Every structure is written in structure tokens, then in C-alpha cells.
């Protein structure tokens, strides 16, 4: 059964069957990544453009690796090398790239809504690699994959997203995806980091990290962006760490297994200590490997739909 849409713009409204199909398909590709020859011919002849209007290292590399391992032809376009600085409009840039005949576009942009806009001006399959504060669906999918890999299921689990939820596209995609998959989702952080109306999404809000640790099976710890937050949403990273940082002591207070995710890059000593980031409960590097498998699954499922 194919996916219900030929684009992956976000997880809001994506049916459970689609998410399950992507997660199941990724299992196969995850296994490919452990082979000596990590390449399959699935997308041979397909051309994919990675259109990155915002700095990104890991997401772009992850997509690029996924594309190469599926034998697709890939081109990277990023702002530093683009013509946007010369005054060309986004639409003209896309039309130009489109004229070079391509099949899929992976896009990251600082404005929410750009992936949806692309579906209107291009015939390619569009994959959102992060748009503004909106969604980052492949990150949430790899998070869910990693949770499932560790705990065997998603349904019924209690997952808490910790940190600057208001400025996180990772948080929003996780909330949509996890709820669709039957998890109970909560968020934890200071009130200044909680988005307007979040409780209307059926998401519990914690301001006490200890309570969040006590009551959840999984913590997805978001990166604190030093340049954005200090002084405006939190007094200092030190105060944040003291009240919301994930430390081994905090976890040790509760005699339980807990799974720690982090989308990276980590600010060690701010949102998470090294002891936890390298400790037994984290799946942070698994997330990175799984990210390639998830992106292979998404590219494969969309790229072979026609």
C-alpha cells in the first residue's frame, strides 16, 4: 500500500498507516546500513535537489547519504552558493531548478509554509527538512523509530519533550506524530518556552523537570539555542541548567528505565550533562543512524509512488 500523499510536508494530519509504513520500511533500510556494501539501486535515475536555505550540517548530510545509498543523483543548493543574495526570488530559483528536470526536492527554509508553497509551483515530490518553527517530519519519524527500537512500541508510552518548545519544529512534529501513534505527549520547560495554546493540543505542560522525569518513559531533550534564549526567555543557561537540565542525579532519584533522545547538536552542560548524553539511557547516536534509514524509507516510498 502506498503513502496517502506524494509529499511529506509535516506530520499534522498524516494517518497512522502512513507513519507505520514509513517506520516499517525503515527497518529494511536500517539493515542495509549494516551491510558491507550499503547501497541499493532503488532510486537509480531519480534526481533529487537538496534545497537548503538555512544552515544545516547533519540533516543535509543525512539526506544526502540516504539519497546516495538509494543510488539517486543528488545536487545540493544552499544559500551561501545560491543566487538569492543577488536578488532572485524564491519562485524564480525554484523554476530554474525545476527546468533542469528533477524528481524530488528536499527543502529547508526559515519560513514556515515554504514546502507547501513548493507543491504549488513544482511537480516534484516535496520533502520538508524543516520549515521555520513549523515542522521537521523526518526528525520526528526517526525519533519515533528510535523509541520503538528501544522500547518495542510507541502506543501507550509517555513521552515528554523538554526545552524550548515554542521555537522548535522538532517538538511540533513529534507532538503530531506521537499522538497519532497513540503515545501520551507532554512538554516541560519554563513558561516562556511554551507556545500559545499548546494545552489545546491535548499536551500536558510541566514546569517541574523532576515530575516530568518521574512520570514519563521517554524524554526528548531539545537543544537550547544560546544566542536566541539567554536573557529573553531564560535568565541564563546556568539557571536553565540548574532547573531543567537532564542530569544523572535527577534520573537516579527515580529507580526506573528512561529513554533519552536529543535531536542534536548537544550543548553539553546546558540542557543535558555529558554523563547522561553518553550514558546508558541515551539513544542519541542511534537516532543519527536511524535518521539515514528513515530518510531512505521516505525517499523510497515517495520516489516510487507514480
Amino acid at each position, binding site marked *: 500500500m502506498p503513502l496517502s500523499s506524494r509529499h511529506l510536508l509535516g506530520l499534522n494530519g498524516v494517518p497512522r498507516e502512513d507513519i507505520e509504513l514509513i517506520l516499517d520500511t525503515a527497518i529494511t533500510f536500517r539493515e542495509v546500513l549494516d551491510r558491507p556494501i550499503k547501497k541499493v539501486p532503488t532510486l537509480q535515475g531519480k534526481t533529487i535537489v537538496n534545497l537548503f536555505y538555512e544552515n544545516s550540517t547533519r540533516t543535509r548530510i543525512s539526506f544526502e547519504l540516504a539519497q546516495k545509498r538509494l543510488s539517486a543523483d543528488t545536487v545540493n543548493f544552499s544559500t551561501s552558493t545560491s543566487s538569492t543574495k543577488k536578488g532572485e526570488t524564491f519562485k524564480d530559483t525554484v523554476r530554474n531548478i525545476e527546468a533542469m528536470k528533477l524528481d524530488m526536492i528536499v527543502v529547508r527554509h526559515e519560513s514556515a509554509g515554504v514546502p507547501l508553497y513548493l507543491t504549488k509551483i513544482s511537480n516534484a515530490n516535496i520533502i520538508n527538512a524543516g520549515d521555520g518553527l513549523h515542522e521537521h517530519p523526518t526528525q520526528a519519524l526517526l525519533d519515533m523509530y528510535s523509541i520503538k527500537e528501544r522500547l518495542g512500541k510507541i502506543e501507550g508510552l509517555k513521552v515528554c519533550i523538554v526545552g524550548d518548545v515554542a521555537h522548535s519544529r522538532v517538538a*511540533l512534529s513529534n507532538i503530531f506524530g506521537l499522538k497519532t501513534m497513540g503515545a501520551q505527549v507532554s512538554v516541560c520547560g519554563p513558561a516562556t518556552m511554551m507556545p500559545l495554546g499548546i494545552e489545546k493540543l491535548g499536551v500536558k505542560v510541566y514546569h517541574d523537570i523532576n515530575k516530568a522525569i518521574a512520570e514519563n518513559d521517554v524524554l526528548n531533550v531539545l537543544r537550547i539555542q544560546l544566542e536566541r534564549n539567554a536573557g529573553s526567555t531564560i535568565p541564563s543557561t546556568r539557571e536553565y541548567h540548574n532547573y531543567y537540565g537532564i542530569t544523572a542525579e535527577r534520573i537516579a532519584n527515580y529507580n526506573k528505565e528512561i529513554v533519552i533522545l536529543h535531536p542534536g547538536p548537544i550543548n553539553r552542560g546546558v540542557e543535558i550533562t555529558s554523563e547522561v548524553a553518553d550514558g546508558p539511557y541515551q539513544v542519541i547516536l542511534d537516532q543519527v543512524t536511524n535518521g539515514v534509514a528513515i530518510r531512505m524509507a521516505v525517499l523510497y516510498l515517495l520516489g516510487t509512488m507514480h
Partner: protein
Amino acid sequence: MQIVLKNVLLINPDQKLNSKSSLLIEDGIIKKIGELEEKEIENCEVINCEGKIAAPGLFDMHVHLREPGREDEETIETGSNAAAAGGFTGIACMPNTSPDIDSAETVRFIIEKSKNHLVDVYPVGAATLGRKGEALAPINELVEAGIVAVSDDGVAIKNAAILRSVLEYCGMFDLPVIDHCEDPTLANGAMNGGLNSTLLGLHGIPTIAEDLIVMRDIMMAEFTGSRVHIAHISSAKSVEMVREAKKKGIKVTAEVAPHHFTFIDDQIKSYDTNYKMNPPLRTKTDLDEIIRGLKDGTIDCIASDHAPHSIEEKEMEFIYAPNGILGLETQLGIALSELVHKKVLTLEQLIEKLSINPRKILNLPVPKFEVGEAANLTIIDPDLVWTVDHSQFKSKSKNSPYDKRLLTGKSVAVINGKKIYMNGKFNNI
């Protein structure tokens, strides 16, 4: 030349007039009102107005003409053409041009450029130099040159001290101070702040940004005794505050733009930049309170906030696209469809909000249906069903969310003195 409006329903609430009659206009002056004999009209151009209304010429007190500065988007002429096509005989143009309307020279330039047009154009001066909120604009000079109000349009008057000065100074001329009410420190966003901005991943501008400045302005109007006019009111709480202030006798008036009683922020789900404006589309709660405010008179007038933008500028990533949409050519149709046909307002009330009140706020005379008066009127077919087609706009720009929308009610002609606009053409009469 003589022109006859035959069997027209004359409505002018300011004259307590609502009756069917015929009107004879000669050389731009109303010559006769009432039954006309055959021989009186044999040499006249007769417009059969059966089923149509004549109202005192409609007036839009919030229009951006873009000239001087951005003539690629709109000029005084094309904006005036759009006004005539939309049923307006008068408009007030806002000062956020380039240069700003903060010198008598620029006021005179606009008046000079618009003087031969059917549509009367009244400049609104900047309240402060460069609309920067630092030093008073030469308001006395601007008044002498012909402004009808001041505003730092696009932004709120910067701080309480300069607002106080502006109000005190303008009080000497009974000049209204129009304020774009928004606290800039809370306004760093691309849409209304709320659940939808969270869901759509866009920074939000919460209604508190508007409410705080509305509260400030009302209190300062009370303190100084001068007049404040709240531009494009959009939040429920602001409407409530204006209502309470009016009850206390504070000199505050308010306008609303058609999109704020037509749309809510659900529209942003399409990320269509034609729904991006400032103040942003709000929620159902806000819209409902605006409707109540229109009904009970808290909101004095409807004004388009006509804001032309080029396609290149508007067709951009949502967070980069400029705010604002066209309004002149759709405003009457929207107001009739959404307010009169839905029984929110009577035709009389609509005419008050689209013609009489804005003129009174700006100290302009209200046209009358009286023998000897200059003809200044709009002929409206309230039941004409039409589809908005932005390719037919007289405006130089196309940025309208109403394109392809079916509307009921339209202006069929406007007459101002010796000029008429009908069937897409201007003629002298």
C-alpha cells in the same frame, strides 16, 4: 449637461432621508428632486435607477496610494481610479509614502496631482517627522496645506510623551490623531498569536499588542481632551475598551477593515500571503466582537486599509512577504454581502459607516440630497451578484484575497460635481 437618476432610492441618514424619487443634476448641481415630467428629461441622459440606491458619495479614510515613492505599486491616479470603481468619491491617503507626508510640500504635491480627478483625495499627515516618533511634524503647516488628520501610520506613535504632544497640538485644530495601535515589542510576528500560530510554526502577534496601545491612547485622549481615532481595530478587547470609553464621553472613534469582519486566522493555513496583513487576521471571538461593535456603533466606520503591493513582493516566503491587501474595489461588495445581506447592519447604518461618519471624523462636509447642492453621490445596486476578478482591477496591484469571490452588491456609478464614473469609464457631465 443634464443627467437624471430615475426612480432612485435616496438614502442619507444624516438628512433622515430614505425615499424613492428622481434626481435632476445640471452642471454638477442638484437641480430638482421629485417627480420629473417627460419634457423635463427629454434632453437629459437618463440613468434608470429602479432597484438602486443613491447614497452620499462613499468615503474611505484609510488608503495607501504609494505616490510619491512606489509608483510601481500604485499612483495617486490609479488609486483614485480604483476608488471610483469601488464606489468612493473621497479618500484619505496615509502618510507612509517615500518621502513621508511630513512636509507641506508633499501635501501640496498630492493635492495638486489629484485635483482634476473625480475622487477627492485628502492627505493624512505624519504626526512626527519621518513617522519616527521623535519630533513633531510641522502640523500647523500641514493643516494649512490641507491635511485632514495625522498618523504615524504603519506604527503606533512611539511613546506616551510624544503621543501627549501630538494630541495636545492637534487639539488646537480639532484634528483627529489616527493611531495604528500596536506595541512593537510584542509585534514581531507574521500572523495572529494563538493556537494557529503555534500549529503553523509562525511567530505570532498577540492581541495584547493592540490592546495595550488602544488602552494607552484612550487614556491619553481623556487626559488631553483631544481626539483619537483607532485605525483598523482587530481585537475583541480593544472593541470593548472603545465601547466603554465612548460611554464615558472620551473622544475616541474607530474603524475596521473589511477583512477583519470577513476572515479569521484559519485562512493562514494555506500560507497564502494575500492573507498576511497588519493587524493580522484574528480569531472567531475577535470577529464576533467586531460584528457587535459594528452593530452597536462602537465601530464608527469601515475603511479598507487599501495596501497595494507588487506581485514580486507579495509572492514571497510567508515570513518575508509584506503586510497588506487591496480593498478599494471590493470593500463595498464585501460590506454589503457580509453585513447588510447577513442582517448585521441596515443599509442606513452601512452608509453611515462608509460615507457619513468618516467625513465627520475628518471634519469634512457630508454631501446632501438638496436642490442647489453639488452632486456627490454613489449609486449602488445592493443585489447585483458579481465575481471579483483581480485582472479587472483599476488598481495597479493585484494583491487581493477576494479574487474569484462571489459578492452581492456593487457600486454602479459615482458622481462628484461634473464628473461621473460609470461602466468602467470617466465622463464629464
